[in-house]
């Protein structure tokens, strides 16, 4: 079932970007220095943005680059900068790692079996070509209340983050 694929442009792009994403993620867990891990995960995030472009979600891809590569990764690099790291993982815990690997592989097997078993087929109607316009229209009509709630959540979270990081400084 997997092997009778036709080599369309979308498949080639999907395959290359998927290999990049998985390679970045696996490399991130195997590298020892924290900064290398962060940059490797930034590579994964960029590959996922490419996958969003392949899926026709250009606006989501743009937000992905802006938010994950531009903000979250840089925030983590600042987090590394503000704290002191003894660059490498010193002692490993083989039992815990083996148990976690077995659990994750079991979960992956269950998920892949469920995905294969569900028999998804591509839907009928195609989406409108101008995804950004449609997202903007939806966001300010049907999804206006969730949009406002998310903006309130973001403000509260950022004020809370500043308060948490600052109050400890006053206490010293």
């Amino acid at each position, binding site marked *: 079932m997997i092997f009778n694929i036709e080599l369309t442009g979308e498949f080639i792009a999907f395959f290359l970007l998927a290999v990049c994403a998985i390679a970045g993620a696996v490399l991130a867990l195997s590298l020892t220095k924290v900064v290398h891990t962060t940059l490797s995960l930034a590579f994964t995030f960029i590959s*996922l943005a490419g996958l969003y472009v392949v899926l026709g979600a250009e606006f989501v891809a743009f937000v992905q680059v802006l938010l994950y590569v531009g903000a979250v990764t840089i925030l983590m690099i600042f987090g590394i900068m503000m704290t002191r790291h003894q660059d490498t993982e010193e002692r490993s815990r083989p039992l815990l790692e083996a148990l*976690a690997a077995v659990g994750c592989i079991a979960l992956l097997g269950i998920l892949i079996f469920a995905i294969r078993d569900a028999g998804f*087929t591509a839907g009928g109607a195609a989406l409108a070509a101008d995804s950004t316009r449609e997202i903007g229209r939806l966001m300010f009509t049907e999804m206006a209340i969730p949009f406002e709630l998310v903006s309130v959540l973001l403000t509260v979270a*950022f004020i809370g983050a500043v308060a948490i990081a600052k109050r400890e400084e006053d206490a010293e």
Partner: protein
Amino acid sequence: MNPASYLTLAAILFCIGLYGVLTKRNAVIVLLSIELMLNAVNLNLVAFSKYGVQPSFTGQLFSLFTMTVAAAEAAVGVAILIALYRARATVNVDEFDELRR
């Protein structure tokens, strides 16, 4: 193209992120692995927005909301990390065990 390919890729990324959360001791890597898991969920949402039974833009919109919540989570996570570092002078998650003693 089959949506199952995208779902399989998302499952693989989710499991890699889960493995990172469970085994890594550095709090920054744990936070980044959580971001990876959230990204895998976003890929599912966007894939279903194109290849679902009823394609619509709601999936892409929900992935935008997920990204917003993930950004808030990352900001609060780094703030807690810095506060903990000031209190304990370490970033290893298995040394934050005061409640277990």
